[in-house]
Structures are given as C-alpha cells and as structure tokens.
C-alpha cells in the first residue's frame, strides 16, 4: 500500500489536524531539486569500522607484521582465529576494488559500488565524529551546527511522504528546518511498529473525536511557537496511527510476504545481525511510499580497542552490517520502480559510513584504536559504481589529495571529508547551491548512473 504525504496532509487537514501553512513547505531561496525521484538510505556503522577488515585492505604478503614498524601498517589477519588465509582478500570483477575478509555480501555489488578511500575526519571522539558524519559539518564541541543530511534531503524531496525522514537506532538532527522534516526516530523496528499502532487499550467510540475537539479548543489563542508545536506534535502522533501503515513494519507477522522478507534479509537466521531488521524496515519504508530518507544503524559493536574484541568480534559484526546493506541493495535491485522499467536501487542512493576508522597498527592490547583516516562506500541511484575514488598511502595508510572531478590522486587535489560527500548528495539531485553551508565542492567523480 503506497501512502503519499499529500494524501496524508489532506486527510489530516480535513480532520482539522494540520494547519494549511504546512501544506506548502518553505523553500531555500531559489534552490529546487531537478531530480525528484531520488531516495536515500544512510547505513551507519557504529563505533568506528576497521578499514583493513573491510573497505581498504592490505595484503599481509606486502605488509607483514615484522615490517609494521617500517610501513606503519599491520593487517594482522593471521591473528584472527578461524580466518582462512584464502579469505583474507576478496577480489572483485572491478579493477582495484579488493576488499578485506569481512566485506560479506556487499562484494557481490562491486559493479555498483563507489568506494572512497583516504577520507579524513576531524575528530576521534565518538559523539563528535558521529555528528560530523550525520550532518556533514563538524560540530561545535558536541553541538551540531546543521541538520542531518537526511533531514535536509527529506525537506527538499519528502513533502509527499507521510514520514519523510525515518530513523532507527541512531541520532537525527533538525536545526532550522520544518518539524515535518525531522527524523521519526525509534530505537528498534518493533518500537516503530508500536508507535504506528493503536495502544493496547482502545478508547470508547466517540471518545477520540471528543478529545480532538477538546484539544482544538485549547489551542485557540495560543501564540507561542513552543506551545503550538506541542499541539502539532499531538495531532501528528494521532495522524500516523490513523494512516494504518503499522502492518508494513510488523516484522513478527506470519504473512507469506513478511516470512519471505525476513528470510531475504537474514532476520530469522541472524546472519545480518541487528542491522537486518532495520534494513528490512528501510526497504518497506521506501517501496511502500512511506519515507524519502531512511537512516539506520547497520553495524554495531565495532569499537574494539581490546585485542580479544578485535580478533573475535569486530570482523563478524562488520560483516553482519555489510550483509544487511547487501540484502537491502539486492531487494531494491529486484523491486521495480513503478512502470519506469528501472529498479528501486536505480532510484535510491545508499551511503554506508562510520564515524571514523580504526588504527592500522595494533595497540599494545592487540586491538585497534581510533583513526582519523576513513573510508566510505556509496551505491545506487545517481552514483557512478564500479570505481574506487582516492587511495590511502602505503606508509601508514594516510589520506592523499584527490582530484574531485576525476577521482584520481592529485597533488593539487583535496582531502575528501564528510562535507564533500554531503555536498555531492545535493549536487546529485541538481542542487548546485551550497544550501547546507558545507563549504566544500562536490565529488563530481562520484556522480553518474541513473
């Protein structure tokens, strides 16, 4: 069942739930997207992922542990129990796109992947770096200086969706954009299902209408924006229940469709970890017309400073996250986008990110600490896949400047940051003006495809 926001707003307005002004979203100057059939998924890997185990590996033959002091790089794959040397490096059909042992099912999508290597972050504190990654702007201390990129995109494109910006398992920020573009954030998919469902104790017939009339009377004469927001949020809380879309997110349902989806996303088997159900939620939200942007925590348990944690837990946790994203990409690729002849993946940009990466040398505990150098991977609509942009150095895996137009290393280029990526996503929908105030140029080499 596809629900569009315009229908939602009309229903809500008809019920006296929403003021007319909110039907016309305010626009940022003259900036209008020229690509309006683009959707976005932000898959966040919490804790700082290990590049060597995933997106930017090194061969232990070239970088053996005994030379680690000299090279500054220590893959240490041989310290990971039960990891077959044949699995240390995962080759793909794309030249130069080799992955580490825990890339999981994402490698199968190599032709659609654009891997950014050698990005530079500006903080190794989790809360600060996380906010930087989500908003595309370095926070002031730990206070964000801008909305989440998802919020901005939802504002620009999501006026027709009932829940333009859906978030699960992570933060979302709205600084200065209309409240309807704010992320509806829950911790789990089940909480989302409960939020969209009627409560366990129904009210008697006629009670709901009477309550709406009562609260409408309370709102008369109020002028404080804060007070008015309370009543707006109250109406929205009722409206999302009245949409009757909770069933879309009932992952415990035994319907044939949901059973099939759970299997496809590895929910019942657990192979996709906690990211699996959230990836399924993202797929449902997009393909049922509920949301324009979906952000979810795909991977967790990655902050492995201790040796035992890094050796035993980091790889499997990382792979589970990649597998959840791969399942989402596979599902979207197999789902037709209306009658366009294209797939939902052709119209959905998926961004996989972590707040930073992990040191390329083991620490004294045999684990890995935080690293300012990072990687990112994008795929889907608007992304030129089958390429690696940028490259870490062979001495310490440092960031190197990149020509943003070609994606090749260039002494006259720039070090890629979160700001560049945020700006790129906007350029991808035709917004050339720096409406997010990122103050960096887009990475043109990333753009292309559908």
């Amino acid at each position, binding site marked *: 069942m596809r629900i569009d926001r315009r229908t939602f707003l009309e229903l809500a307005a008809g019920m006296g739930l929403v003021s007319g002004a909110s039907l016309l979203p305010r626009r940022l100057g003259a900036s209008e997207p020229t690509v309006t059939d683009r959707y976005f998924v932000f898959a966040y890997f919490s804790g700082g992922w290990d590049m060597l185990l995933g997106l930017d590996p090194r061969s232990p033959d070239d970088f053996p542990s005994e030379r680690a002091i000299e090279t500054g790089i220590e893959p240490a794959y041989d310290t990971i129990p039960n990891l077959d040397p044949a699995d240390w490096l995962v080759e793909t059909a794309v030249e130069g796109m080799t992955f580490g042992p825990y890339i999981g099912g994402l490698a199968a999508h190599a032709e659609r992947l654009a891997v950014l290597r050698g990005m530079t972050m500006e903080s190794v504190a989790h809360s600060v770096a996380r906010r930087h990654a989500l908003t595309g702007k370095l926070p002031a201390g730990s206070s964000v200086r801008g909305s989440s990129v998802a919020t901005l995109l939802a504002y620009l494109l999501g006026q027709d969706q009932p829940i333009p910006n859906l978030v699960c398992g992570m933060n979302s920020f709205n600084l200065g954009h209309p409240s309807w573009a704010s992320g509806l954030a829950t911790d789990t998919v089940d909480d989302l299902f409960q939020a969209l469902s009627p409560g366990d104790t129904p009210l008697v017939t006629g009670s709901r209408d*009477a309550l709406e009339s009562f609260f409408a009377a309370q709102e008369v004469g109020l002028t404080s924006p804060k007070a008015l927001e309370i009543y707006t*949020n109250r109406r929205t809380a009722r409206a999302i229940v009245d949409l009757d879309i909770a069933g879309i997110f009932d992952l415990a349902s035994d319907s044939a469709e949901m059973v099939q989806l759970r299997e496809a996303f590895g929910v019942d088997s657990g192979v996709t970890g906690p990211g699996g159900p959230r990836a399924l939620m993202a797929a449902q939200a997009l393909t049922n017309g509920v949301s324009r942007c979906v952000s979810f925590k795909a991977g967790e348990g990655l902050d492995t400073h201790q040796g035992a944690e890094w050796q035993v837990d980091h790889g499997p946790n990382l792979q589970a996250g990649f597998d959840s994203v791969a399942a989402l990409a596979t599902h979207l690729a197999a789902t037709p986008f209306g009658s366009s002849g294209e797939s939902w993946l052709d119209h959905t940009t998926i961004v996989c990110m972590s707040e930073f990466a992990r040191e390329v040398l083991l620490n004294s505990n045999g684990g890995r600490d935080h690293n300012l150098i990072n990687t990112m991977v994008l795929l889907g609509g608007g992304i030129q896949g089958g390429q690696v942009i940028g490259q870490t150095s062979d001495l310490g895996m440092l960031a190197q400047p990149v020509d943003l137009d070609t994606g090749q290393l260039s002494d006259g280029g720039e070090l890629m940051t979160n700001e560049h990526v945020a700006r790129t996503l906007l350029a991808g929908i035709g917004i050339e003006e720096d409406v997010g105030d990122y103050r960096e140029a887009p990475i043109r080499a990333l753009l292309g495809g559908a």
Partner: protein
Amino acid sequence: MCLVIGGCGGAESLKSPSMSGGDATDATTGTTGTTDEPTLPGVTESEVGSVPELISPESRVRQKKRMTVRQVRDSMERITGGIVWGSGDESDWDTYAATLGVADYQARTSSDRTPSVLFQKFLDDAAAHTCARWVAAPGSSFFEVDDPTSTERADVVANIEGLRWQIQGRPRTDDAPVIEDYVDLYATMVRRTASTSAAWNTVCVAMFTHPDFFMY
C-alpha cells in the same frame, strides 16, 4: 551602594548590605564610615544610566520544561494508586526508554525533553491504559464525590477540580476557563455513550495528555 539599573530612588532602591568586618569604605569618596548604617553615596539621576529596567523584579518567567520519562511514569503510577502501563512487572515507559531518548550514558548522555511526536503518542497510550483501570477500580481515588454516576453540574465540577488537583497539581479553587472545557467534554461523552464511566475515562485521558500535566 545602589544596585538598581536606571537610577536610584528613595524607598524603591535596593540597598546592598554593608561589608562585614570592620568599617565600610565609601566606594565614591573613599571615606570610612561606621558599619551600623549603610552609607549612601551622593548619586544623582545624571550620574546613573538611563537604560530602563527590562525585567520587572516581580517577573518569574522561565521556559516550561517537559517531564522526564521517569517523572511521567512515577507520577501516573502514584496518582492512580499504582497502575502500571504495560503487561507484567515492567512499565512500557522503560521498554520504550531508548526510543523516547532517555539517556543511557553510553550512546546518549542527555535525555530528550521535548514533547515530541513519539512522546505524545506513547503518553496517549499510557493514559488510555491507565485511565480505563483507574476509573473502574473499586474504591478508586478517581472520584471526588460520593456518587460517581451523578451528572449534577456541581458534582461534575467538583470531580474535575479534584482531578486537576490530583493529576495536574492545580488548586481546587483555581477558577480556570479550562474547567468549562472539561465539563463540556464530559457532557459530550455522556450524550454520546449514555455512560458516565466512559465520560470520566475520556476526561481522565484529556487531563493526562494535556500540557498542564507534562509541562512545568
């Protein structure tokens, strides 16, 4: 020394207490006087700025805050004599704590205190659950009057005033216009359902989901 912005004047000026220990020194003249009486400097209107006092000393305005999730949970349980929202021993407020932005001091170090969409949705659920049981409970503390089924205006108003006191902390003698709104709500539900318990249930939900309960 006169501390009032905008000039010193007779009885309205705020006099600072004199320095303790030893003689007070006149800040203007540098002379020393006794510590028994404050020495007022010879300040005239022209020597003090003309900026008007922006905030009246009687003003005690601050922005209202939303109750924490724990405050809401504990308040509802205490008001209703221990009715827990949820099944089993755990309150659903605790079940949904992470979604409601309660700080766990690992991933989140500060709690979300906004009257958000999700907070109000779950508050509505909690109110419906709690009120249905509170109204129906034998010997319930819900009712202020002896006859819960009375539709006499005086009894209805008395009950509403009692509920406002219990739920929202408003004085019983507070002759607020909202009381008439609650009376209208009650009367509407009696007409629709012919049930006074359904009507009181609805009034109860309205009170718990009103900002007068969760904003302070």
